[in-house]
Each structure stands twice: as structure tokens, then as C-alpha cells.
């Protein structure tokens, strides 16, 4: 079962909060969710919408048709009616407009309720939640307890007022439209689940990894990592700094990294572009840093609140000069937590910049993931700081030439020695050099880290579905995993086996390991990406010689949908 509930209204009136509450209630009642918010790049004015797919099994993509549409204004109906399922239920205010078509109208007297309880316009959301829960066969237990917790500090009167609005919305449905109630979120047996978005998953992973310093400048869609970590700062003791620009951001983080603190930064493409010189510095100084890059459609300011996977080649090539760097790309929120923890370890183990890639879609959608599995995974995790040392004598060499390419890195403060970390080419002791011999030694030393990484930490792509039986095989990375996994499931339901090859460790790539995955010439490999150039395809061709004849590329700022993949089978 998959059922889509969607709410829309004027931007700035609490749609996002309402949508998230709906998601959390559905999950508390035992269902899985996948939700998505649409908003223009404005603070107020314009149209906001939030849609939640509710399912009785894990769900990783949106569905084509909307089953329940809550219209806080007429525009919502006009903008989304083309996606309505036959006999979709429309919750609306009869004083504002009357929807027409092959629908089931569920009038709720929003205006009248607001007048009766003397409420502000924003309370329409609460009425809408009450009505929605009624339509979908739930009661108000969870919502009432959320209100009790959320408004505990504001007192009983505020809690009770909110509960009354929800009750009025609920009653309007139960009393006047009882026949239209469907049992979609009736309570069922379930395991405890977390509802979080990709940015929260990164933030959570960063805390677990014992990141001590996070620095950023706000940029959609990466900003909520900054605000989430800042909000947790008092609890976690992480220093979270909103600096003056992205250049300051990454240089501060590298200063903190030099002093011994695990450090990370985050931005979207434009801010990341400003960090590029310092990424190169991380390469030559061999200072660990984790960079969270949440993509949005570019170039330049592009389409700030929409989605694209347009920065893969940029991330791979970011930084002048030649130096090793690792690029990881999670495909869902569990992978985000896991790969974030790994990113901090890899940064320390190899003393390189590690880029964790996301996009607007992955950063902002909420998914439900297992509480127990997640908590077990994170509690098992012990940060690995590689060759970081806190004691050394006067013979210490910061850039000692080693077989694996990694030199012991001393936390400044040891009293028997001192050293400099240097953005100029340097001798083993860190002093500046222009010697040809020493230059080659250091270039080769740094390059050896790539071999060590490929042998020890690189992971080949994950396969979703039964690749033995599948003829059509999609190939992608990042947030595409969600829609591709859903396509594999749906195809199976239609009696067709397809598979999806999902890359998480995007750079550097192990040629031999990857060529093995693509060894069957009888299969039809289709590159599927949220960009116009097929950047993973280019990267694979460059690094492994694998070329794709078939592609499915979407670059209108919108996420890929399951039907687009199914059409290609």
C-alpha cells in the first residue's frame, strides 16, 4: 500500500511544520513515510506544498498520484489537480472555493472554526491536521501528545487551544463525511522508527563521529546542517561557527584541524566553489577535513530550492594541483549516517579532504529508518583517527616519507618538539623547499595514499535487485538510489526483473573492481542521473573506460520519478 497525502498553501504559514507532524504521526502509528517539500526561493509569498507518501513497507520515492489533497487556498487545488488520483479526497474550505472534477469533496469550515475559536490564520494548519488524520482513519492521540510536549513551556492553555483546533477539524470530517474515511493510518504493530531528513542524518553522523568544529555560511540546501548542529551545540559541546564567508569557513576549519580537532564544513555549489583553494591546501598540508556538499541546480545562483546532481565532476576535480581526495555519496539517510562517520575516519586516516555529497532532494526529504538498527550502528562506532599522535621527540618529521603515503600527524603542544604544516611544497620536516628531488618524494608520498585507500577502504557499487536475472540495469549515484530502488520493486510487481547499480564511493575508483560489475555485455546498462551531462558516466569512462549507450537524464530541477525509469524497461 502506498498513499499520498499532500498539503498546500501560501508560503510562510507553517506548511512545513504541519507536513513533518503528519509524517511523524504516521510513523508513530507504524507506517513508513517518504516526504518532500516544494517551496520557492522566498520567505513569504508564493506557494508551499508538502507531500507525504505513507506506506506499510519502507518507501524511498514519491508516487505519481495524490490521494488526499489539503487545500489551504484555491491555488493549491489548481496547481496540483493534474496529479490527483481518481476519486481523490479534497479537504477544502467551502467559504473559499469549491473543487470540481472526479474527486470526493470533504468540506471543512476552516474560516468558521477560526472565527469561533478566535484563532490566527496559522491555526488552519492544526485544523487541517485534525481533518487529515480523521480522513485517514487515525485518532488524535499522537497529535495531542506532540502538542503537550511541544508547548509544555507555554502552559496548559496553549496546549488545550491547539488540541481544540485539531479536534474541530477532526470532528468536521467524522460528523459530516464519515463515509469517506479510509483506514490508511489505523494503528498497526511496528518497530520504533526515526523520521529525519538527509541534513539531519549528516548532522547526527557528525556528532557520532566526534566532530568538534563545524563551520559554515548559510546556503540552501545545506543550511540546516549549520542550524541543526548549532541547536545541539549546548548538549554536544561542538563549536559551531557561522563565519563571514565560505573562504573563512574552510580556512578556520583547517586551522582547527591543524590544532587537532575533527572539523567539517558544509555548503552548496556556490559556497563550495569559494572553498576550492583551501581544498587544495588540505591536499598539500595533509590536514583532514570533511566537506558536506549539498547540490542544487547551477550554474551560479541557479535554482536555489530545487534539486540536481550537477556537481560531481566539480567535486572530483575541486582544487588546483594534483593531490588525493575522497568523494563519497550516500543514497539514503541510513547511508548518510554511515558514510558521514566513515568520512571523518577516512579524513583522519588518509589526512585528505573528504567530500560527502548530497542534493536538495536527499537533504530535505524525510524518511523513516529503524531506530534500533541506527542506534546499534552508531553505538558500535569508534572514531578512528589514523596516525594522529600526541607525543613525539625532537626527531619528529611531519611529512615523513612512508610506504602507505601517510605520515604520523602530531597534535601541536607536545613540549619536546614543534613543526610547521606548510601550503608550500616542503621537506619531510615541513620547511619550504624548491628541490626537485624533495618535490618528487612528497608528490609520490601523497599519491600513494590513493593506492592504500583503494586496497583498504574503497567499496565497489551496491547492487539493488537481482542482477543475475535482470536484463535492464540502471546505474546511478546519490539520491537516485531512492527512485531506482522503488522502480526495482514496482517492476517486480509487474513481473519484470530489473536491477540498479548504486555508487557510494565515487572517487577515487578501483578500475578492476568496477569493470567486473559491468562484465556482462548482454545486459542493457542505463545511466540514470539528475543532471544533463551524465557526469557519473563521464567519470566512469575517464577512470575505467566504461561507456554508456543508454541514458536517462533529468535536469529540470525536479527529482526523477519511478515512472520515468519504468518506461525505459
Amino acid at each position, binding site marked *: 500500500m502506498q498513499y499520498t497525502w499532500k498539503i498546500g498553501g501560501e508560503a510562510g504559514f507553517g506548511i512545513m511544520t504541519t507536513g513533518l507532524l503528519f509524517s511523524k504521526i504516521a510513523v508513530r502509528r507504524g507506517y513508513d513515510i517518504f516526504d518532500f517539500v516544494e517551496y520557492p526561493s522566498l520567505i513569504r509569498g508564493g506557494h508551499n506544498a508538502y507531500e507525504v507518501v505513507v506506506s506499510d513497507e519502507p518507501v524511498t520515492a514519491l508516487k505519481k498520484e495524490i490521494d488526499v489533497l489539503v487545500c489551504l487556498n484555491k491555488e493549491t487545488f489548481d496547481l496540483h489537480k493534474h496529479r490527483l488520483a481518481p476519486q481523490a479526497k479534497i479537504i477544502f474550505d467551502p467559504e473559499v472555493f469549491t473543487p470540481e472534477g472526479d474527486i470526493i469533496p470533504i468540506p471543512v469550515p476552516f474560516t468558521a472554526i477560526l472565527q469561533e475559536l478566535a484563532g490566527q490564520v496559522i491555526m488552519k494548519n492544526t485544523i487541517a491536521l485534525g481533518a487529515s488524520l480523521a480522513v485517514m482513519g487515525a485518532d488524535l492521540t499522537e497529535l495531542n501528545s506532540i502538542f503537550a510536549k511541544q508547548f509544555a513551556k507555554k502552559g496548559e492553555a496553549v496546549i488545550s487551544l491547539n488540541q481544540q483546533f485539531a479536534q474541530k477539524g477532526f470532528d468536521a470530517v467524522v460528523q459530516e463525511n464519515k463515509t469517506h474515511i479510509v483506514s490508511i493510518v489505523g494503528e498497526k504493530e511496528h518497530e520504533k522508527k526515526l523520521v529525519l531528513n538527509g541534513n539531519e542524518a549528516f548532522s547526527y553522523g557528525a556528532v557520532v563521529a566526534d566532530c*568538534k568544529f563545524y563551520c559554515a555560511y548559510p546556503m540552501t540546501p545545506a543550511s540546516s546542517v549549520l542550524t541543526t548542529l548549532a541547536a545541539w551545540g549546548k548538549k554536544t559541546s561542538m563549536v559551531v561557527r557561522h563565519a563571514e564567508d565560505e573562504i573563512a569557513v574552510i580556512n578556520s576549519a583547517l*586551522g582547527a584541524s*591543524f590544532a587537532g*580537532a575533527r572539523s567539517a564544513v558544509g555548503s552548496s555549489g556556490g559556497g563550495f566553489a569559494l572553498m576550492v583553494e583551501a581544498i587544495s591546501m588540505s591536499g598539500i598540508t595533509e590536514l583532514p577535513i570533511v566537506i558536506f556538499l549539498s547540490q542544487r541546480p547551477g550554474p551560479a545562483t541557479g535554482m536555489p530550492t530545487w534539486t540536481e546532481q550537477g556537481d560531481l565532476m566539480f567535486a572530483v576535480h575541486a582544487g588546483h594541483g594534483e593531490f588525493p581526495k575522497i568523494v563519497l555519496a550516500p543514497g539514503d539517510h541510513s547511508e548518510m549516517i554511515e558514510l558521514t562517520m566513515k568520512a571523518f575516519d577516512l579524513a583522519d586516516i588518509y589526512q585528505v579532504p573528504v567530500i560527502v555529497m548530497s542534493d536538495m532532494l536527499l537533504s530535505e526529504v524525510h524518511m523513516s529508518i529503524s531506530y534500533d538498527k541506527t*542506534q546499534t550502528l552508531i553505538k558500535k562506532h569508534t572514531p578512528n583517527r589514523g596516525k594522529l599522535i600526541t607525543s613525539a621527540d625532537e626527531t619528529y618529521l611531519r611529512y615523513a616519507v612512508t610506504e602507505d603515503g601517510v605520515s604520523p600527524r602530531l597534535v601541536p603542544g607536545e613540549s619536546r618538539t614543534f613543526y610547521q604544516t606548510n601550503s608550500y611544497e616542503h621537506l619531510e620536516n615541513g620547511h619550504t623547499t624548491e628541490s626537485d628531488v624533495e618535490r618528487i618524494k612528497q608528490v609520490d608520498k601523497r599519491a600513494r595514499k590513493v593506492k592504500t585507500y583503494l586496497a583498504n577502504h574503497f567499496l565497489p557499487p551496491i547492487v539493488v535487485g537481482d542482477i543475475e536475472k535482470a536484463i535492464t540495469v540502471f546505474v546511478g549515484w546519490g539520491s537516485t538510489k531512492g527512485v531506482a530502488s522503488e522502480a526495482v520493486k514496482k517492476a517486480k510487481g509487474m513481473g519484470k526483473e530489473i536491477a540498479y547499480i548504486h555508487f557510494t564511493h565515487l572517487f577515487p575508483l578501483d578500475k578492476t573492481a568496477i569493470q567486473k560489475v559491468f562484465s556482462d555485455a548482454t545486459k542493457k546498462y542505463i545511466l540514470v542521473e539528475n543532471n544533463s551531462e551524465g557526469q557519473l558516466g563521464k567519470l566512469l569512462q575517464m577512470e575505467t573506460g566504461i561507456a554508456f549507450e543508454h541514458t536517462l537524464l533529468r535536469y529540470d530541477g525536479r527529482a526523477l520519478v519511478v515512472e520515468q525509469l519504468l518506461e525505459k524497461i
Partner: protein
Amino acid sequence: MSTVQDFTGYKPTWCPGCGNWGIGMALKTAFVEMGLNPSSVLLSFGIGCSGNMNDFVNGYAMHGLHGRAIATAIGMKLANHKLPVCAIVGDGDCYGEGGNHFLHACRGNHDIKVIIHDNRVYGLTTGQVAPTAEKGQVSKSTPSGIIEVPVDPIALAITQGATFVAQTFAGDIKHMTETIQKAFKHTGFAVVNVLQPCVTFEKKSTYQYYMKHIYKLDTNYDAANKIAALEKAFEIGEEKFPLGVIYESNRKAYHQEAVADDAISLINQPPFQDFDALAEEFL
């Protein structure tokens, strides 16, 4: 007890007569007199003739990117506020390429000491104008004379919120040494603008020029008076350069508000473990 020799690294590559020699000596002397040693100080170097001091002065140092030494120093201080942090930068570094960082570091009152080599010219790139160059100065990049008026470093620092603003002269090692020590004693963002002749590329601002145009502030000068301090700063327009602590005030340093426990540096804070409490927010 350390010695100047302990702080002495490789042989400098500066031009004979360059003001950097004096600044390097004053810095090392100040370190010794303050009881520091190369293992107990964090240094952040920019890029330029000034930044090249990284190879000549010993310490736990980072030779970073042009313009970014202050940003880097801020990260060092927040990660380990137990160690003193000093940024050694040039005028192009600090007021040009890194102008934005300077401005916001003043606001943030980060507890770092910034020693700015103000020689009005770009030495390492062989003689283009710096942001402190006088209007009309002819250089390789401004053959008809620079159009802009110079940055006023002292006024800029005071108005943007720096809590310690001093000026000294590369020809007076004793005064530099004392001023640097005062900067280190101050908790907060300390700006030390060092007037420095470039004997190779800047023919006006020579040692002789500065000897005529500098003067030391009176012993009864009140550095707490912001308006008086600004008046001193504006004297640059009349080619008068006051030496000494021009402005000093007290405000909590950034790390004193940002780091959870003043007694423990960030790098030594125990790892956060209460993951279930954070997970509550996602239920």
C-alpha cells in the same frame, strides 16, 4: 627558559635592510621575554615576504593561504584556546585579500594576536601597490599612480570592534618587542600594525621618512578613549604616525563564549555520548 636561538629557524631570505629582520627579532625576543618556547605557541602565517618568516621563526606553525591567516588562526584558537595564537601577515594579506576576515575577526574579538607588516607595497610579487599605499603611488600595477585612497588600518580596527589596537615601527626593536608583549597580555583581538620600510620596492616610506613622521604616545595618553583613539588614527592623513597602544578595551573573547568549558580546550573535551537524547528529536 628559552632563548632567541631556540626560536631561530632557517636563515632568512629577506633583502638586506628589510624591515622584516627587525620584526622577526622583536617577535622572538618578545616570545622569550614572555616565557614562551617554540612548543608553546601557535603561529599562523600568510603569504608574502612576511609569511616567509614561517621558515625563520620556530613554533607550531601553519603557513597557509594568501589572505587567510586570520581565518586559520581563529580555528586554531577555538580548537585549543590554552595556547597563545599569533597571525603574522602582510598588508596585502590582511587588508586586501583577507580584508573580510580582518573586519569580522575584529567584530568577533577572537583572542589572536595579529602582527601586520605594513610596508605599502607587494614585495614578494616584485613591487605592486598594497592597500595601504598612498594615493598616487606609482608602481608596476599602477603606472599612472594608484587611484584609491589608502586603508586606514587603525581606524578600521577600532571601528570594527577590535579590543587592542597598536602601532609600532620596524626600525625600533625595543618598541616592537614591548608592543607585541602588550598584545599578548591582552585577551581578545589584538592588532599590531608595524610600519615597515621596503628597501627594494618602496622609495618613499623609508626609515628616514618614518623617523620624521612617527612619534610615541604620551605616557598620559588614555587608550580607553575611543574618540581620541580615532583622532589618532586619522592623523595618517597628515602623515603623522602615533606609536604605542592607541586603543584598548575589554570584551569577552570569542572562545570564552563559544567553547563549552573554559577549563578544557575543545580538543580535550570528552566525546558526546548521549545519542538517544538526540534521537528523541526524530521520533
